[in-house]
């Protein structure tokens, strides 16, 4: 083959360009820490990485839902345990009242029951953040007051995202117990309200109505059991949330490592390749430099001067 001047320069240029490009790519991968800097680097991996990123964002959203539900559930749990204490105090008071003698003792016991009622109403208006937890979905205003012991009767549940929507439970959890869930209970075939029963007990003690007082002792026992039951319901939700949280954490870690495999630079590998590319580039530069002397005119010149 006839070798001409342009051929040599074209070839040298192409080789140097290709090697420069390789070096630039590798050093970019090492510097940025990611192998994918645009979709065309690997379209499939790029799309996978996007989907995983969206999944990770969703997991964060789910974890925030779980945190919210857990916080709410803990607030509910502590309100319920205090409430059960109050009911049992009311029951103790009723037992004392049943054997009470004299009006002054009755008045003391009646005011004790009133104090219990006051505390119970306060618990019924417990808040998590600025939301009333026993108000159904109408969480912005206090559901109970001394004048309204039946509450707002809002039976809606607050559904919060605690999983992906393809999960068997639709990925959501009802975080709240409504006022009726907590304060309504059945005793002797009747549906009663805990607060009204306590209030009625106060009236009965005041009026010395011993028949009502003694029936209230049993009724309050049923109320106590009901509230304990609701605590169990709430506790079950909390432990399910804890399980869900650790499951989501595991999935999050898995997705993170998949994402890292997709887009993170294998620094050792890239550095070795960069080293190779640099060596090849230096060799190419040296060869290009030699081309300058490899021709007849320069031989003739060096011969005549030397």
């Amino acid at each position: 083959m006839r070798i001409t001047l342009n051929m040599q320069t074209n070839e040298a240029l192409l080789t140097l360009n290709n090697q420069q490009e390789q070096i630039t790519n590798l050093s970019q991968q090492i510097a940025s820490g990611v192998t994918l800097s645009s979709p065309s680097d690997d379209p499939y991996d790029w799309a996978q990485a996007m989907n995983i990123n969206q999944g990770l964002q969703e997991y964060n959203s789910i974890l925030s839902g779980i945190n919210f539900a857990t916080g709410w559930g803990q607030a509910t749990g502590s309100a319920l345990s205090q409430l059960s204490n109050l009911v049992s105090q009311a029951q103790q008071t009723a037992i004392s009242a049943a054997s009470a003698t004299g009006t002054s003792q009755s008045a003391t016991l009646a005011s004790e029951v009133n104090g219990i009622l006051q505390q119970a109403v306060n618990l019924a208006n417990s808040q998590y953040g600025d939301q009333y937890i026993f108000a159904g979905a109408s969480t912005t205003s206090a559901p109970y007051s001394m004048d309204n012991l039946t509450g707002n009767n809002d039976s809606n549940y607050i559904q919060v995202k605690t999983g992906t929507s393809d999960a068997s439970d639709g990925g959501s959890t009802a975080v709240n117990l409504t006022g009726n869930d907590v304060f309504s209970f059945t005793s002797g075939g009747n549906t009663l309200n805990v607060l009204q029963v306590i209030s009625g007990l106060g009236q009965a003690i005041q009026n010395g109505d011993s028949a009502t007082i003694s029936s209230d002792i049993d009724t309050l026992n049923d109320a106590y059991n009901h509230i304990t039951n609701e605590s169990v319901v709430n506790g079950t939700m909390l432990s399910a949330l804890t399980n869900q949280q650790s499951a989501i954490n595991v999935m999050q870690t898995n997705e993170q490592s998949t994402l890292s495999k997709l887009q993170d630079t294998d620094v050792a590998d890239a550095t070795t390749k960069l080293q190779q590319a640099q060596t090849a580039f230096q060799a190419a530069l040296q060869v290009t430099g030699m081309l300058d002397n490899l021709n007849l005119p320069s031989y003739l010149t060096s011969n005549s001067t030397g």
Partner: protein
Amino acid sequence: MAGLNVTLDIGLQTLQNTQTEIQTASNNISNASTAGYATETAVQTANPAILTPSGWLGTGATISQITQARDQFLEQQLMNAMSDDSQYTSLSTQLTSIQSASSDSGDDGISQALGNFFDAWNTLAQNPTGLSEQTGVYSAAQGLASAVQSTYNQLNQIATQMPGQIQNTVDQANALIAKIAQLNTAIAQNQTPTCQPNDLIDARYQAMDSLAQLIPVSFSQDPTTGMVNVTTTNANGSLPVVSGATGIPLTASTSSTITGGQLGGLLTAQTNLTGYISQLNDFASTLMLQVNNISEESEGGNLNPALAVFGGTDASSITASTSFLSGPTGAELSSSAQAIGDLQDSQVTFTDGTSATPEQYLSNIQQTVGDDVQQANNNQSFYDSLQTQLQTQQESVSGVSIDQEMINVIQDQQVYEAAAKVIETASTLMSTITSMIT
């Protein structure tokens, strides 16, 4: 005496011949790196012999013509490779800028805004009447709308620049077509059966090479006039652009379906871009429809268009509004917030018939763009090496080899010195004879 005179004549002609050859070599060396230059050779032929009593005696040599080294077959192949190379170079350049305009790694861009949007609805479900949760949804919806719109605007900006670039390329091609026709005329005027106007031919090859970078080119040469006929290809097949002395410029209709060269690359990029924009519109309009369907029915299950979260019709006009917050009760808002949040991993049927989650649809757009760019890049690097290979072959035939020219010059120098010696000798012999006469 006759013999000596002829010897002197031959010597003189030899001196002239070697000077012509050295000039040719000098011209070659001087054009060694000139683009489009083909190495020239002074073709030397023996003069007719004279019949003398001693037999046929030679009378020296003449330079009969200066030829250039060209292989038309190689030139045609090189032009094809140039068309392909510049087609994929321009396609890759265009698509790469489209790719960075629409780039969405999942950490940023529309995906991120989409994730935030769903996250905000999930938070709203926790506290539907909370002011900060409500504001969060509105600002996330606004963020999503503006991310979609800004991507659309970036793509649209490239789309509006494309016709100008295409027209520019067509104008350049038309100028080259006119130039080739002019050169055809000039070559036909200067061509004789033995002499060809090498520099004009170089200029015409250069013009054809430039044209081949813009549109596909194939040519055939008329051996008597030296003119070339040039055709290009569009969707309807072969399209003549130069016919002898006449250039046939590309028109808007003939140029719109050119299938190669820079113009072909631009046209493909334009088609692809239109596709991406329509996918983005499908994404935006479907998401708007799905979200609005839920929010518009949030109040008591009745359809109320005033409760739409998004306004507008497609990616160019998507906007977010706050009106969806006023009307529904907290419980209604909470359940619609939850339903909208669930869209994040629901299979949704998009207007183009695809069934995917919103994020999958987005990542699919990115994958399509990435695939197109990757394909263009692969083709470009393939045709780049093919072009270099053919250029090497073409250079091997037509290029200037400095070594060869130096050898020629050394040879010419020796011939020149020998001829001068012959003249000197003949001159001495003649003066010997002249001195015998006096």
